[in-house]
């Protein structure tokens, strides 16, 4: 359990960030609210006069509301890219329904006798709208605006997925890192913000007749003023912009390490890895945190920067096998080791690229590779026994598993059954230790940080070299879990900073130190 003190101290430590995120969040909420009112109010008024359009407009706004927020962001990214514009658009679309509906209901709810009297007195349609309809519908319209505001504060947390900032940065970072304090540091201010704004607007809603007229006049100004919050933090300049995942932001072998070890000082936005690669390709970002064998590296012509001070622990992949299986089928180990050292980073990246972007099947891709390497042999259809292969859910693991199953079938009399798609590390590893699978490819860094979790000092000492991590993991796994780590396949799927190839070449940046120096020079 986390103690309240530690949450408090986290918030205290991160107060500058927290303040910035809160201000961004307020700005984001109000800028979209402003646009929503600007569009929704006239639209709501229009459909009180055109009943046929009413069904259409309310239907459209209703459908917008039902689209899951993440999906809506997904739809918007191809059209509007990342950053504030798609975020504001999404919030706008969400907030639209309550504003339109309440304007419509509010005006329709004005006593028809009063409306007729306004006309009978000689008011024009416009005069009646301003002096009678809107003023009398004001409480209902304000209720709609309140609802829209609360929705915006809530959905606004998702802006962190597409580099638009806000309190979602802490929330999603905290979820990725399983850090409760971080989640709360984002969630509590967001909740308080929603309550506070709702309360302030409720005061406005209950305002008397006279102050209501003043309020109607001031509302646009206040909205505009609060909207400007968002614009301000984006005002400062630095030539390069980094986009890091929420998880990377909170990791020691991530943003924190970059700042502490390299002294890297770069303007950073938080973004989900689903859209990050596309964004750097479209020059919306200049540096991203990615995985070094990701197929998108090739698809978008990116280069990884060398981690010359070794803050990213190595993530070398190697097959992990249960000891009983090793003893029962001694012929297995040499076959599995046939891949050792054969696949380096760029080969693995290329294989991932084929599957992710050229839509080849992992099996086809695995066979082509083995054939090219002269390793492929037709299955012997042996009956000596069955080896169960597992894999996590991503293309790299599928490709490796397919290669292993072809090798086992071709070189031994063993049959293979594949259990691909075993969620994440935890599920895969549990399956292995509970005798559900016999082997799967695992990464040294993952085994160290996610499974073994040695003390921080030990970790820091180990992560400087590929071999020390491998040796530690191999020994510990053998001792604690009776698992055998075979030889590494060769590639290192670690965290890496990436840039567009052309820009990196132009700025002569090859290592993270180069990047740090370039930014220092840039600033001076």
């Amino acid at each position, binding site marked *: 359990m986390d103690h309240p003190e530690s949450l408090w101290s986290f918030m205290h430590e991160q107060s500058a960030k927290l303040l910035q995120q809160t201000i961004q969040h307020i700005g984001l909420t109000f800028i979209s609210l402003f646009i929503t009112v600007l569009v929704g109010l006239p639209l709501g008024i229009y459909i009180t006069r055109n009943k046929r359009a009413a069904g259409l407009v309310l239907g459209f706004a209703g459908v917008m509301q039902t689209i899951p927020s993440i999906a809506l962001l997904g739809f918007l990214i191809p059209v509007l890219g990342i950053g504030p514009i798609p975020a504001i658009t999404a919030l706008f679309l969400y907030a639209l329904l309550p504003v339109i509906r309440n304007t419509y209901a509010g005006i329709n709810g004005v006593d028809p*006798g009063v409306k007729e009297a306004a006309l009978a*007195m*000689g*008011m024009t349609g416009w005069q009646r709208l301003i002096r*009678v309809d809107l003023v009398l519908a004001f409480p209902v319209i304000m209720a709609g605006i309140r609802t829209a505001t609360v929705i915006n504060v809530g959905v606004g947390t998702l802006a962190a997925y597409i580099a638009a900032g806000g309190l979602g940065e802490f929330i999603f970072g905290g979820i990725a890192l399983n850090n409760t304090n971080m989640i709360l540091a984002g969630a509590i201010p967001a909740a308080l913000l929603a309550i506070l704004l709702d309360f302030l607007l409720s005061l406005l809603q209950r305002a008397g007749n006279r102050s209501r007229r003043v309020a109607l006049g001031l509302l646009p100004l206040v909205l505009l003023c609060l909207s400007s919050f968002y614009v301000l933090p984006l005002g400062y300049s630095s030539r390069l912009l980094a986009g890091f995942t929420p998880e990377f932001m909170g990791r020691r072998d991530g943003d924190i390490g970059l700042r502490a070890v390299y002294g890297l000082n770069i303007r950073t936005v938080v973004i989900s890895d689903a859209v990050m690669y596309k964004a750097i390709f479209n020059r919306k970002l200049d540096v991203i945190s990615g995985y070094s064998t990701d197929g998108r590296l090739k698809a978008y012509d990116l280069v990884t920067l060398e981690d010359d001070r070794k803050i990213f622990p190595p993530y070398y992949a190697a097959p992990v096998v249960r000891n009983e299986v090793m003893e029962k089928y001694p012929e297995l180990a040499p076959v599995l080791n046939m891949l050792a050292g054969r696949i380096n980073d760029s080969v693995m990246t290329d294989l991932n690229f084929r599957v992710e972007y050229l839509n080849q099947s992992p099996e086809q891709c695995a066979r082509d590779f083995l054939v090219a390497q002269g390793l492929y042999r037709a299955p012997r259809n042996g009956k000596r026994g069955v080896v169960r292969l597992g894999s996590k859910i991503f293309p790299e693991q599928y490709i490796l598993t397919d290669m292993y199953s072809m090798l086992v079938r071709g070189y031994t009399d063993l049959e293979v059954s594949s259990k691909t798609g075993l969620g994440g590390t935890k599920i895969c590893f549990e399956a292995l230790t509970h005798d559900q699978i016999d082997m799967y490819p695992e990464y040294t860094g993952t085994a160290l940080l996610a499974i073994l979790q040695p003390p921080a000092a030990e970790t820091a000492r180990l992560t400087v070299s590929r071999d020390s991590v491998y040796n530690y993991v191999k020994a510990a796994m053998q001792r604690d879990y009776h698992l055998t780590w075979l030889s590494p396949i060769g590639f290192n799927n670690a965290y890496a900073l990436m840039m567009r190839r052309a820009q990196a070449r132009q700025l002569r940046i090859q290592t993270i130190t180069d990047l740090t120096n370039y930014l220092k020079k840039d600033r001076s």
Partner: protein
Amino acid sequence: MISVKNVTKTFGSYKAVDDISFSIKQGENIVFLGTSGSGKTTLLKMINRLLEPDHGEIAIDGVSIYVQRPEELRRKIGYVFQNNGLFPHYTISENISIVPRLLGWDKKRMAARAIELMEKLRLPSEQYGAAYPFQLSGGQQQRVGIARALAADPPILLMDEPFGALDPITRSAVKKDFKELDELRSKTIVLVTHDVQEAFELADRIFLMDKGKVVQEGTPDQLLFEPAGEYVRTFFEEQRFPLEAERIAAGDYPALIRAFDKFKNRHR
């Protein structure tokens, strides 16, 4: 002053007003009398264009009402609603000043006029001027409705069942003060009601309406004593005695007894 020619208004397939023509002289008090659904309110609302006829022509002082903008027309015609139609968000004096404000009067003149009318309608301005409609009784609200209609001193006053929503005691009090208003002297008034007593009390001429047609048009005496048919005769039957009694000179007891006998025999 007001001339109506061949006016017809239908709602869907229902003929609310069916080819009606008449004219009203300046200063006349006209009552459209009829049961609900007879078309009397529809006819009234066409005079200030709250409703537009399907056919026909309406003119005021010889000028067609369709050549001017409806709001310009309406500012020159007072209108009183059955359920007062006061603006709940306006004070009493603001409610009274709606039309003067639309006409662009200056503040001093508007305030003076509001006070004047409130006094005439027995609503002490210092007590009620800053009050809101919900703080007033039904009778007081209706007084404000009348004051609002008179505020810009329009030559024409349209009244849609103005006393219909009030209880009998309040009704007679409001009606009494209304009738005593000096403001009304030169005005042309068109009033809609289903109340025979009220029609006889206020009308110079009554238009008795049924199913969108004017069944008979004439002075109260003409309708009472020279009914133009069975419908008109039966319409007044219930109240024939009190209506006739009012028209008999004080002290003429034989005439009164004759009228009562006639009334009693019919109702046997």
